[in-house]
Structures are given as structure tokens and as C-alpha cells.
């Protein structure tokens, strides 16, 4: 069950990041002033991918709450780093980003670490 929760948390986190990144790039540059924030809120309400991103964020946080309830903190927090692995794989194969040797090696080291948490 704990790996189901870890997977749910990681997939929801990465999906939320991807959806936010996709929609915010389409929306163009945003400002952080009072009017900018109001415009940002109005934009969130109009863009379904951003609403979906917020829902994913909620799923991720609730999964983390369930994980810390049933598993040791020393497992739950380090296990959340598994998002680095999925992000790197998606960056390479879905977003077609250039993944350097350092990033690939880092992701593999994280993977080895997560396996050792068991």
C-alpha cells in the first residue's frame, strides 16, 4: 500500500507541475503586482488545465498526509524525491528536453536511494 501512495503522490506532483508549466507558457509572462495577481486568479478560473493542476496538487498533498499517517516520516519524505526520476524521464521522452549526464546520473542515484528506503 505504501508504494501505491508514493506512486500516487509522485504522479500527481509531476502532473501538476507539467500542467502548470504547459498552461503558464501558453498564457505568457505574468506579473506579481496586485493587479497581476487578480489577473492570474481570473486566468486560473478560465483555464481548465490550471484547475486540473490544482486538483493534482490536492491529490498529491492528501497522499502525503496518508503516507505520513501510516508510514515513518523517515520513509515518507525521502520517498517523495522519486518525483525527480519521473520528471527526468518525462523531460527526456515527452518534453524532448536535453537531459545532461549530470541530471541523468542524479536521477539514477535518487532511484537507487528510493529502492534502499524499503
Amino acid at each position, binding site marked *: 500500500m505504501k508504494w501505491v501512495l508514493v506512486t500516487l503522490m509522485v504522479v500527481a506532483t509531476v502532473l501538476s507541475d507539467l500542467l502548470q508549466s504547459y498552461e503558464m507558457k501558453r498564457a505568457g509572462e505574468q506579473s506579481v503586482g496586485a493587479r497581476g495577481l487578480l489577473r492570474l486568479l481570473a486566468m486560473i478560473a478560465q483555464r481548465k488545465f490550471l484547475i486540473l493542476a490544482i486538483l493534482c496538487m490536492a491529490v498529491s498533498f492528501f497522499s502525503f498526509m496518508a503516507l505520513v499517517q501510516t508510514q515513518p516520516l523517515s520513509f515518507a519524505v525521502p520517498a517523495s524525491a522519486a518525483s525527480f526520476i519521473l520528471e527526468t524521464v518525462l523531460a527526456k521522452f515527452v518534453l524532448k528536453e536535453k537531459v545532461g549526464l549530470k541530471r541523468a546520473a542524479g536521477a539514477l542515484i535518487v532511484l537507487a*536511494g528510493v529502492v534502499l528506503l524499503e
Partner: protein
Amino acid sequence: MASPRSLHLRTYSVLLLFIALKAIGNLSLAWGMKHLPEAGANPLSYIRAMLDPFVAFGVISLIVALLTRMVLLSLADLSFVLPVTAVGYVIAAFLGKVVLHEVVTNQRWAGTVLIFIGAALVSSTGEKSK
């Protein structure tokens, strides 16, 4: 205008504050959740759980940590902030052992340290790809 030295001091103070808030937030959340009945798959149970003082304190600390991180990002580069804050994984394991009396095996310590190194490596590679 702030001198480089005072800016440096401010950056490290905000960095320490962020790491502390995140650690305390996670700890309080874990402590509160462990003392509640299992929430299962109902999202409403999690919203109800936030009424517990420890869970609420944890959630508020994590929100303040997020805001502190934004301040930190205005003071320092992401390629500095992300690798340094990866130390949070090791701190969480340490607090789990010392405060929550969890059994942390040598294998789990090794895994946590590898995660810290790997996360620092991944996040120190820069954020721009184009």
C-alpha cells in the same frame, strides 16, 4: 542599498528559516496524522484532519515555508536553492528517528543519503533548456 555581506547574511537566514519551517511542518503533520483514525480514500477526511491542531500547525508551517522559499528565490538562484534544500530529506529522517522514535536502519540511511546526493545533482544542472 544592502551590502553584499548583509545580503549574504539575509540569504542564509531565509534559507535556514525555510529548512526549519519545512522540517517542523512535516514533523507536526506526521505527529498529528498518526494520532487520528485512518483517513482512507475519502478527501473529506483529509480536510477534516486539518482541524486537528498538530495537522493544522503542520499545514500552516508548510504554507509559510512555501512563501519563504519564494522570498529565497528572489535572493538566490534556483540552481543554488534546490540542491541546498535537498538536505531536508536527511533532516526528515533524523527527526523521524529522534522525535518520533522511528527505527531507521543503515540501509534506509544509505538510501536517504543517496537521495540527497542525487536530488542535489539533478537540481544543480540549471533550469533553462532553451
